[in-house]
């Protein structure tokens, strides 16, 4: 195991140097999400040596760690205190750092109930494109002093700066989780799921593929029995690996090398994209493998007030994320200017225009 190291000063010197030379940098943590987003131009700057947990106060429900700290290390530490990262970050190829998890903004199956990185991020220490070290947010749960610039970093794909440190809210881990399953032949599966959700059943993940629907529940055995009987659901044992494989996209569904789309929608939205989708997040996140033209898939998502991302494979030279309203694109470009006026961080990784 690599040892903890504070590389902030070295990174700052590197950034200042790059800034003066207008040299572009491609930021890399463990490179577990190298496939995600557009290909950034520039020289690789590895952030994985800047690592280590800075503070962890279990009863304050917050952990602060350097950006390069591996997720597995953080999760191991939290598990000792029966706690977890509520957004259940994916560990693609078994990798992932906390800085990368926040920068990519991706969440696992628990997302609708546990939140996304943007929901759980409490504060950051940022190294911006002018080599300045800035602190936004903090280590406390509620903080409305100044604009919330820390959460703006979640999902920005490192285009605004280097996350030297992040403080993230953690939560108690449910003592037990169970998996239930149901098949729906002609019933609309959303109706069943909406019914369960409306009854405040403690769902922590869902996965629907074809006629088969799996639900993960956090409850004790007694309650599980009750739910099972009342709703006619079947229990399946030893599903922990299934949910992990879903989180890390290791299920068969994800093994096809054709374009994989991530479609984000209101849960009740009916989508008929041609091919079968795999639905998570109580239907709010749908995965589609399809060779259909991007514009068609995006139009389908947009009709339902959602959006579509070309997540993996396919033509990665164009825009992968849903096009923005012109004014939003302009605001985004100007915000990039605020944090990184010389455009040194991950140019083109998020959108081609910055």
């Amino acid at each position, binding site marked *: 195991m690599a040892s903890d190291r504070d590389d902030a000063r070295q990174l700052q010197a590197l950034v200042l140097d790059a800034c003066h030379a207008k040299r572009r940098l491609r930021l890399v943590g463990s490179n577990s999400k190298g496939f995600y987003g557009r290909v950034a131009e520039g020289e690789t700057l590895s952030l994985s040596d800047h690592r280590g947990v800075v503070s962890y*106060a*279990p*009863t*304050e*429900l917050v952990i602060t760690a350097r950006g390069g700290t591996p997720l597995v290390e953080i999760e191991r530490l939290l598990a000792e*205190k029966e*706690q977890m990262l509520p957004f259940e970050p994916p560990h693609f190829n078994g990798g992932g750092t906390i800085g990368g998890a926040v920068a990519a*903004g991706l969440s696992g199956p628990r997302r*609708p109930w546990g*939140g*996304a990185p943007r*929901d759980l991020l409490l504060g950051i220490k940022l190294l*911006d494109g002018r080599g*300045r070290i*800035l602190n*936004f947010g*903090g*280590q*406390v*749960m*509620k*903080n*409305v*002093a*100044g*604009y*919330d*610039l820390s*959460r*703006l970093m*979640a*999902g920005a794909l490192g285009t605004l700066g280097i996350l030297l440190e992040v403080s993230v809210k953690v*939560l108690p*881990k449910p*003592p037990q989780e169970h998996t239930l399953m149901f098949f729906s032949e002609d019933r609309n599966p959303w109706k069943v799921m909406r019914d369960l959700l*409306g*009854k*405040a059943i403690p769902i922590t993940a869902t996965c629907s593929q074809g006629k088969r629907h799996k639900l993960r529940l956090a409850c*004790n055995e007694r*309650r599980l029995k009750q739910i099972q009987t009342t709703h006619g659901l079947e229990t399946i044992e030893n599903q922990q690996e299934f949910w992990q494989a879903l989180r890390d996209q290791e299920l068969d569904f994800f093994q096809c090398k054709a374009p994989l789309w991530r479609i*984000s929608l*209101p*849960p*009740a*939205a009916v989508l008929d994209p041609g091919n079968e989708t795999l639905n998570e997040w109580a239907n*709010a*996140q749908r995965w589609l493998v399809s060779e259909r033209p991007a514009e068609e898939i995006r139009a389908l998502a947009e009709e339902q*007030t*959602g*959006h579509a991302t070309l997540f993996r494979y396919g033509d990665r030279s164009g825009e992968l994320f*849903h096009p*923005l*309203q012109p*004014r*939003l694109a302009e*605001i*985004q470009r100007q*915000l990039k200017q*605020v944090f990184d006026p010389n455009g040194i961080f991950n140019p083109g990784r*998020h959108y081609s225009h910055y």
Partner: protein
Amino acid sequence: MHDRQTLARAFQQLLPSDCVIFREEELIPYECDGLSAYRRVPLIVLLPYTADQVEAILKFCHRKQIPVVARGAGTGLSGGALPHEQGVLLSLARLNKILEIDAENMQARVQPGVRNLAVSEAARPHGLYYAPDPSSQIACSIGGNVAENAGGVHCLKYGLTLHNVLQLTLITIDGEKITLGTGGLDAPGLDLLTLITGSEGMLGVVVEVRVKLLPIPTCQQVVLAAFDDVETAANAVAEIIAQGILPAGLEMMDNLSIRASEDFVHAGYPTDAEAILLCEVDGVDDEVAEEIGQVRQILLKSGAAQVRTAADEQERIRFWAGRKNAFPAVGRLSPDYYCMDGTIPRSQLGKVLKHIGEMSDRYGLRCANVFHAGDGNLHPLILYDANIPGELEQAERFGGEILELCVAVGGTITGEHGVGMEKINQMCVQFTDQELETFHAVKAVFDPHNLLNPGKAIPTLNRCAEFGAMHVHAGKLRFPELERF
């Protein structure tokens, strides 16, 4: 300088005449928000009915370079909606329609002037509710909640406004309508929804909000625990969390607040306790019963002198009524009170309360403490009498010192009320010049001419230099005995 009469005539061309308020006596009710210590009469008040009218107003103000201060229900506690003497006070109170309760998707679309509680009332027939519940929820508006990123007593489990908003329609200062967020759980591009939430009307005017609705819990139960000292109560809170319990609400009150509330609403609080904790658990019946059992045990083990579970729903509501009415209750003890809003790491509570006690003696002003214990958000209520010359200034100095203490122990000057006008000086303590510069640069992206709520939320570097000169930064001199974070 704009002339009131000329401007009124111009706006009367733009809007129905009942939307334009410009007579001095009619302007007075708008001179302050919930922080009545600060008052200013606006040049003019506009009360549009529609988003299109808001757009027209902003376009006009942008063209004429007129400052605009947006106002919701005016319940804010930091002077965020304090008018500008040379500007328009833009009240969104008439944009008060619930546009859609989408029970199927568990969402609602509302206009900004809709009251917080009205959303839950409209959703109730569908078995749903809107989770954030600031104490002012009967009166405060969703638009104001978004501007302040309002919290409430249940945000430990259900999150802040930020966590419960899916989409915003915003009108920029130059009158362009933009949509942030989507009908799903996320949106493409930078997460501007998080940036706008809590931005105190400095970046744009929100004209529509799509919120998340949750199923109403089938069972709620609350435990009241009394303690002989505050520190033991704070430790009990840590112990509940350490045991893996995430209560729906976890509130603490000190003796002065307990007595004030008891006198006011007869909640059944033990008035001899130094602190009480209210711990609420929600969910389904038997699980709630089980968890309440655990909570009771933890509280007793942690040294509670008395632990009472609400006997029935009436008592549960009464226990909460005491807490939710703590501010007005304390208000009865004194002609005026000044409410602070720092957040601290919970472990620092004992230390912070001890210091506040010392300050209270030093300033000769009483201070009652109400605490969202679950998330570390402290509301010291400083009692003063504005009719006694100098007492308001003393209260402000006392409050400022409390906020700087919060920063010194690793917390923040505001957890949920916002910076507004009130805490603008303390921003200089919490942030460096470079950080403040970044805030100004972000503001300029949205509002390059500084027309939206000018002078609020983010201090100018000059102001900080002046404040620093008379004040010495907290980190340097104040509380030298404290460990620094």
